[in-house]
């Protein structure tokens, strides 16, 4: 871990994509870092948590991603360089603040990291492509492919952010964030400049009519950034020589997909021209137009949604209407049919790109044909001695599961959706189990038990709890308090008494907050006392008001850390 702090310029070390982002931020003189943990972005916060004091950087785990983005913006407004990291869904939470933030722009360089999870390896909810926020918020967005690029692009993002006074986003996917590879170190020195907020409501107050001017200024910034993008070496053409051009087949790829394209071309001994796009937004439209002008066939490879494909189809209409564009869009009128040769669902894999390129080039590739046998599948489950076993066991003894509706969310307790528990009838984002429970009890009078984790309670559970009390319904909410943010790697939260930098701090009591929200029926139970727990569940399910049980027993890893 300490290797990441080495100050040996040119030394090669192995880093995960996420660690390389940390190193890139350090080499850029980052001073202020915030996050809410979420896989596949968690190692950014975890790494800063370990090294921040040594590196002279302020780091915090914020209560949720929106707050994390706000505090990082506050640092940037005070002229510090700041970085905020989150997973895809975190960006949804933060988006309410993100959109006006890009309007106003920033002062110190500010970089936002978002990590998508194609294939939902570690994500419930959805296979979200966060790049859509580039359009929604007009935020410049870069897509690295390798750990080296994670570092280099982070540095570039800081430079661009400071030069154009705009936050810059880096979009990773799981196979980039959790890819390790060789990274060449650059110079890193502590940045000891102090922050100062200088009043400037002209920039930082997003009120009409000024906000419309801001919108105009933002669009102008983006066009300047597009000029930069046109010339930038992170949008690079390879094999662009005349011989390769004669092939009339070209590839445009971004992120991890570029590595699959390179790997496959090496194996098939192909040298099609490739345009690797490091910028997702703003796109270098001229460069793309030039690249596709003389091609007959184009393959576009990108992870998750076919955004590049749609953009490039529009460009091709102007520059090369005859161009056949292959990709993943299943859209009935633009593409689809025989041009839809990559999957739109799930993550890409090198063999999918292999198949696509063999189709386009006519090259043969012998893949083994043996049929895979059927074999049993191992599902995720609670760790041995996990205290959650006792909660779900007690629930099954307290109620007939078919008579009660069970609400879940993301966190370790979502594994209650799997056998042998089967105790989640709906499962969405953090905090939602409580909000939905209120809607169901209000609509039906049916009994609902809503499970919410301790970190999730702080993250987004509190407003939903207040709502249920205020608007008079009666779900039973069970706060699964295991004293940590377990699923993402045991990060502290406001109830734990430790900050992200390991300092002692106040430990907020969930019961105090629950009481302050107006809840009268409250019990705090160590679920090892099964009979007491079962009795409380039975009693509270009969109540006409909101009830809360805090099931309190630490995660098996809490004292090991």
């Amino acid at each position: 871990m300490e290797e990441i702090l080495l100050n040996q310029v040119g030394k090669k070390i192995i880093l995960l994509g996420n660690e390389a982002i940390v190193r890139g931020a350090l080499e850029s003189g980052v001073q202020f870092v915030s996050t809410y943990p979420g896989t596949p972005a968690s190692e950014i916060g975890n790494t800063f948590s370990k090294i921040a004091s040594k590196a002279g950087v302020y780091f915090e785990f914020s209560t949720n991603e929106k707050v994390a983005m706000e505090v990082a913006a506050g640092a940037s407004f005070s002229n510090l360089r700041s970085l905020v990291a989150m997973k895809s869904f975190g960006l949804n939470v933060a988006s309410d603040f993100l959109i006006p933030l890009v309007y106003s722009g920033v002062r110190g360089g500010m970089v936002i990291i978002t990590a998508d999870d194609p294939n939902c390896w570690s994500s419930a909810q959805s296979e979200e492509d966060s790049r859509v926020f580039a359009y929604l918020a007009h935020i410049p967005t870069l897509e690295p492919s390798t750990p080296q690029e994670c570092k280099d692009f982070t540095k570039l993002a800081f430079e661009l952010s400071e030069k154009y006074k705009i936050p810059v986003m880096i979009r990773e996917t799981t196979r980039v964030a959790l890819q390790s590879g060789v990274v060449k170190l650059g110079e890193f020195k502590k940045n000891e400049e102090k922050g100062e907020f200088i009043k400037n409501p002209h920039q930082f107050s997003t009120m009409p009519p000024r906000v419309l001017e801001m919108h105009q200024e933002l669009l102008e910034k983006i066009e300047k950034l597009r000029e930069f993008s046109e010339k930038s070496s992170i949008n690079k053409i390879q094999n662009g020589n005349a011989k390769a051009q004669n092939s009339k087949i070209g590839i445009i790829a971004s992120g991890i997909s570029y590595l699959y394209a390179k790997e496959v071309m090496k194996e098939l001994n192909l040298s099609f021209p490739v345009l690797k796009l490091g910028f997702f937004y703003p796109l270098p439209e001229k460069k793309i137009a030039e690249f596709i002008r003389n091609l007959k066939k184009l393959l576009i490879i990108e992870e998750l949604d076919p955004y590049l494909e749609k953009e490039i189809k529009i460009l091709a209409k102007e520059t090369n209407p005859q161009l056949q564009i292959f990709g993943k869009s299943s859209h009935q009128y633009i593409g689809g049919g025989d041009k839809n040769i990559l999957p739109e669902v799930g993550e890409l894999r090198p063999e999918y790109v292999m198949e696509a390129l063999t189709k386009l080039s006519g090259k043969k590739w012998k893949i083994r044909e043996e049929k895979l046998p059927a074999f049993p599948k191992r599902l995720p489950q609670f760790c041995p001695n996990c205290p959650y076993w006792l909660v779900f066991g007690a629930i099954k003894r307290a109620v007939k599961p078919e008579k009660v509706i069970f609400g879940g969310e993301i966190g370790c307790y979502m594994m209650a959706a799997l056998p042998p528990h089967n105790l989640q009838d709906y499962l969405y984002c953090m905090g939602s189990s409580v909000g939905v429970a209120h809607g169901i009890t209000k609509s039906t009078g049916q009994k609902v038990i809503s499970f919410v984790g301790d970190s999730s309670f702080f993250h987004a559970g509190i407003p939903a709890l207040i709502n249920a009390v205020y608007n008079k319904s009666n779900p039973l909410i069970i706060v699964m308090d295991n004293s940590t943010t377990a699923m993402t790697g045991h990060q502290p939260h406001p109830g734990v008494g430790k900050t992200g930098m390991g300092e002692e701090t106040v430990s907020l009591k969930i019961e105090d907050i629950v009481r302050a929200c107006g809840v009268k029926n409250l019990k705090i139970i160590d679920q090892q006392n099964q009979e007491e727990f079962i009795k409380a569940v039975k009693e509270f399910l009969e109540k006409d008001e909101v009830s809360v049980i805090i099931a309190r027993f630490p995660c098996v890893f809490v004292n090991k850390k």
Partner: protein
Amino acid sequence: MQKNFNIIITGVGGQGLITLTRVLAEAALIEGHDAKTSELHGLSQRGGSVETHIVFGKDVFSPLVKKGGADLIISLEAQEALNALYYGSKNRTWFLIDKFLKPISGNQKELSIKEIIRETERFSKESLLVPASEITKKELGNPVLAGIFLLGYAVRKKIIPLKPDSILKAITKVIPEKYLALNQKAFDLSFGR
């Protein structure tokens, strides 16, 4: 080395796959190779099947090994070898399987070791079954060292084209001080087997 060397490690969450993956990548870097790995965190580590990829050689692009593209599959639990058949092929793949079974919950029909080997043989040039967990538990009191033991085994049998010394150096670098001696012993245990 003409072509890149592609390794898949499979097992169950908690068996130390990520440490093994780091050791291999560091050892490859020590020998001057380019190297990439791919791993998964979070939900994927919760007692379910886990799989990591390690590729090293001259120029490595993809961190993922493709279908049928593995040179070596190390399986830290026998049934998990079945998950990795996808990456195996008759002409290039070695299977190195720990003779250790962790039951799968539910009412699914599990395959016996014999049936598993019958399947891996269809997707490999050779399948080796080694009682690594049993040996490390008996000799060192901890079956989690089975991975390092198997690494030693694969290097000494020259299945992995890296020097034992490079792996030992990598172990020293990656493994925390307090577990180091035990891991070095596990690596040496494979000697002569």
